[in-house]
């Protein structure tokens, strides 16, 4: 085998030597044969003649020897590639257009696929990821499983389970690295002692968190992620043993995690890992470790080799009653406790990690994958058109080569080599484009409070995908032209242009089909883009019930600042009044829940008129706000009064409700002056709360969600105390200018308070991130498709006009009016356009249903969008067609006929 390889390689790379040797050898043979015949008595001339006859064609023998050497395949390939490159180089404009569109088409596919790969397909970089399983709580009442656990529940799972070789848990938090002032948040992951060990990870430096580190009352230790270590410590070994401040508590750095590991959650990366037990240090008195209704952990396990999934499921089922019974939240109502005990543990494969991002973007990514696939098809159609035109120009060359004995297969192979060369070059450029594109897309997926991180290093799967679509593309755009152009009648080709008319018209028919399908596909894309853009526009211009512009949100964390609960209210009040005194500030309010930030606080409520309200309809959404809140957000008060200084901790409980709540719970009566009660978790009704005002409906946790029945309470009447509140600051100057004076003002109250800044408009944008991404990309690709189809249409009609120039000349010489020539060309255009549009409308109607779920405020078969898309396409196509048609109309009969 090895000698074979050496032989072939020598033949390939020392080609000239090998060829020289062969030549020498054959000549030697020939000379000897001649001398033999001379010796036998022939005259020298006769001897040579006879030897040459016997010998046969020298070049043919050489070719056969090359075949025998086994390199001719590669040699032919190199030859073809050289030839193809020369040809492509000779028509730089066509090549550039083809390359650019291929780079865009393949690049877009690679970009979207690498996102799909990173978000959905990629396996975690841990030991034997296939053995990992996510453990969830299945609730028969909801018929659904939830992945969140409380610490007591997790401890039960950890201590009682025997189906997994080991189990581990983790929970996430963002903790402040800065000590006071503007917060510098680090993604912190709380991990159980078995986390790193079960995943089979080895430290880059120091040691990782082990079982011994995760005991109640443990010291505060932390492991850094590799990226965090590089960024903040420059990768210095001295980081080990140093102290890191998290929410103003010192943690000792004990090690660094391996470089490829970003955490269990795809879409995020952790900065710091600390043992679960150390949450007690951060939490202070209200430690989450013994909280039975604080759901903050995710649990996973490593399956024992040889234990099947059904076996695991059965064992988990058997363990469940004991686990849930031991961790039941004792403050829940009897019914609630009973439902809690009915839950069971289930396990799902978790080799790809878990991801909220995946749930959010799986469907949009599928849609985008379809969109870029269509774009690539349209690109292929365009290049196929170009190739057909090029083939027409090379018609004679191909005929000559066939006449000289080149087989059709050989010619097709050569033409396909050209296409593959083109698509490979396009793919290389596409990969560069994709690298840039994916980075941009990830930025678009990120929001102010959730920076999306994806491991976008190209893996074999992405490169394989790109190679496959490059090959497929070459096949799609190359095969038809190659088949057509090699299917020539030699005699007619040699005779000259006249005899080619019939073949030309058949080639033109092929181009018509190509363009019509382009029109159809681009219409589908335009409709999809139109739907997604309109849906986004509806969402963006939606009346959300308050004015999102010019409002800065400042989140203050009094707990990290270690301000005792009894002083918190005073601190908030003092801060609020300081902020309102700042120059440029119009008004200030504050609230416990930040509007449209995704967070929610709800509970059941009851009134004397809500007996008929059952199920989830009894829920109302709550917020605790200061008097300035409504004015600052410009939420109009429809009746009654806003809160004032008279609403204190000790004054009667009051509330302001929105229209939806008034309607649902007060049966259309004016609720002002009436009362409602909160249904506490324990199953008993709270004290009556008097409604003092009604506000206009407004969105609560996100723009997309429906408007909830909402009740606002005075910030002074928060049950217990609230440690983190948000100040809403409406300003007349840009919010970015305001950040520094606000920090100074807050520092004047207490230096230790960490602040987080956002704008309300930014939050609104962030809650539309998925819609914005889809609208942006589908709009871009829709426009691209339209452009490509237009180029295709224009090119085909130009070609037609050039081909029929002589015919038009004759017609005009015989007295045809320019208008009738124009009509001739436009007829062709209309046929192509009409067929394409009809097919496109059918495909759109059949497929837009797939988009339905992603649309906001309009249906998948929205007539306005469909008609609009058809109109845009037709107008652009008619303009593109009119230019060549007008040229046909202006043909000078004399010039046209002179060509003949």
């Amino acid at each position: 085998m090895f000698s074979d390889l050496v032989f072939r390689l020598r033949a390939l790379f020392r080609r000239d030597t090998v060829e020289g040797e062969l030549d020498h050898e054959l000549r030697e043979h020939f000379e000897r044969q001649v001398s033999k015949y001379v010796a036998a008595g022939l005259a020298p001339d006769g001897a040579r003649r006879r030897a040459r006859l016997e010998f046969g064609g020298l070049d043919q023998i050489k070719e056969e020897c090359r075949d025998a050497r086994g390199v001719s395949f590669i040699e032919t390939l190199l030859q073809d590639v050289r030839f193809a490159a020369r040809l492509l180089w000779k028509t730089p404009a066509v090549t550039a257009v083809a390359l650019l569109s291929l780079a865009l088409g393949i690049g877009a596919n690679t970009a979207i696929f690498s996102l799909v790969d990173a978000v959905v397909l990629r396996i975690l970089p841990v030991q034997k990821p296939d053995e990992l399983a996510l453990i969830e709580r299945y609730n028969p009442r909801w018929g659904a499983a939830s992945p969140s656990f409380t610490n007591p529940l997790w401890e039960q799972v950890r201590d009682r389970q025997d189906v997994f070789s080991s189990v581990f848990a983790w929970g996430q938090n963002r903790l402040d690295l800065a000590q006071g002032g503007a917060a510098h948040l680090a993604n912190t992951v709380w991990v159980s002692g078995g986390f790193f060990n079960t995943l089979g990870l080895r430290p880059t430096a120091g040691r990782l968190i082990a079982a011994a580190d995760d005991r109640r009352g443990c010291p505060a230790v932390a492991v850094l992620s590799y990226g965090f270590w590089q960024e903040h410590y420059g990768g210095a070994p001295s980081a080990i043993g140093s102290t890191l401040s998290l929410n103003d508590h010192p943690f000792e750095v004990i090690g660094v995690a391996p470089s490829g590991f970003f955490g269990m959650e795809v879409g995020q990366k952790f900065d710091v890992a600390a043992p679960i037990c150390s949450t007690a240090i951060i939490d202070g008195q209200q430690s989450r470790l013994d909280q039975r209704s604080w759901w903050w952990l995710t649990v996973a396990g490593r399956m024992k080799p040889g234990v099947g999934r059904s076996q695991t499921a059965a064992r988990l089922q058997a363990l469940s009653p004991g686990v849930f019974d031991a961790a039941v939240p004792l403050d829940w109502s009897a019914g609630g406790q009973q439902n809690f005990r009915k839950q069971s543990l289930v396990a799902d494969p978790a080799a790809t990690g878990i991801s909220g991002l995946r749930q959010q973007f799986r469907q949009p990514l599928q849609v985008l994958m379809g969109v870029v696939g269509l774009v690539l098809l349209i690109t292929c159609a365009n290049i196929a058109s170009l190739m057909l035109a090029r083939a027409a120009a090379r018609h004679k060359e191909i005929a000559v080569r066939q006449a000289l004995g080149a087989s059709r297969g050989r010619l097709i192979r050569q033409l396909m080599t050209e296409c593959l060369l083109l698509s490979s070059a396009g793919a290389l450029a596409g990969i560069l484009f994709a690298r840039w594109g994916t980075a941009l897309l990830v930025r678009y997926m990120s929001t102010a409070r959730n920076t999306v991180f994806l491991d976008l290093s190209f893996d074999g799967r992405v490169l394989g995908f790109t190679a496959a679509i490059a090959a497929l593309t070459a096949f799609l755009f190359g095969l038809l032209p190659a088949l057509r152009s090699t299917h020539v009648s030699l005699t007619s080709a040699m005779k000259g242009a006249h005899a080619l008319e019939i073949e030309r018209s058949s080639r033109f028919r092929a181009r018509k089909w190509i363009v019509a399908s382009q029109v159809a596909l681009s219409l589908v894309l335009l409709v999809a883009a139109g739907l997604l853009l309109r849906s986004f526009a509806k969402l963006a211009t939606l009346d959300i019930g308050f004015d999102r512009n010019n409002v800065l949100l400042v989140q203050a964390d009094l707990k990290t600042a270690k301000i005792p609960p009894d002083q918190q209210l005073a601190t908030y009040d003092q801060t609020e009044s300081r902020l309102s005194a700042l120059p440029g500030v119009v008004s200030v309010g504050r609230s416990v829940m930040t509007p449209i930030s995704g967070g929610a606080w709800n509970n059941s409520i009851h009134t004397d008129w809500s007996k008929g309200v059952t199920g989830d309809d009894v829920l109302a959404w709550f917020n605790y706000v200061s008097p300035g809140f409504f004015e600052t957000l410009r939420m109009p008060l429809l009746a009654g009064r806003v809160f004032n200084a008279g609403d204190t901790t000790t004054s009667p409980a009051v509330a302001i409700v929105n229209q939806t709540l008034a309607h649902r719970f007060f049966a259309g009566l004016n609720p002002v002056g009436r009362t409602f009660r909160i249904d506490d978790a324990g199953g008993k009704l709270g004290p009556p709360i008097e409604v003092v005002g009604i506000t206009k409906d407004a969105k609560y946790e996100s723009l997309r969600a429906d408007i909830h029945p909402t009740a606002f309470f005075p910030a002074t009447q928060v049950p217990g105390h609230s440690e983190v509140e948000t100040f809403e600051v409406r300003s007349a100057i840009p919010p970015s200018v305001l950040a520094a004076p606000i920090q100074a003002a807050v520092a004047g109250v207490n230096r230790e308070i960490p602040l987080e800044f956002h704008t309300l408009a930014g939050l609104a944008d962030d809650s539309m991130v998925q819609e914005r991404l889809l609208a942006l990309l589908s709009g871009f690709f829709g426009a691209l498709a339209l452009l490509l189809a237009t180029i295709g249409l224009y090119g085909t009609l130009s070609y037609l006009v050039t081909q029929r120039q002589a015919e038009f000349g004759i017609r005009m010489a015989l007295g045809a009016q320019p208008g009738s020539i124009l009509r001739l060309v436009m007829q062709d255009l209309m046929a192509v356009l009409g067929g394409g549009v009809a097919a496109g409308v059918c495909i759109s109607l059949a497929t837009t249903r797939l988009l339905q779920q992603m649309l906001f405020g309009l249906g998948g078969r929205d007539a306005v969008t469909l008609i609009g898309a058809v109109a845009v396409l037709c107008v652009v196509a008619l303009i593109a067609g009119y230019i060549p048609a007008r040229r046909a109309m202006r043909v000078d009969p004399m010039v046209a006929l002179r060509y003949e």
Partner: protein
Amino acid sequence: MADPRIDLPQGTLDLLILRTLALGPQHGWAISERIHQISSKVLQVQQGSLYPALHRLERRGWIKARWGASDNNRRAKFYGLTASGRRQLQAEESAWRKLAAAVAQVLETS
């Protein structure tokens, strides 16, 4: 015109070349001459198939080429049998003998 020469059946050329080279390294022309002579001028090797065959055998590692001086003191490429070529020769020889015997038997009995 009655030609005493017959064309070689498919696959036998390799065997003949290997057999010829078993006697010692030879250059191309000498190989064809030798086959011609030993076969009492019945077997004629076409140059068009000899050289591709030599290249093929060399690629398979059964023969090895080396440049040397020929009898008339000119530079020539000599082909010699390798160890694996020798084994191949044995295998092909016995296969050929079996085939020939079987064909002869069939011809005689019918």
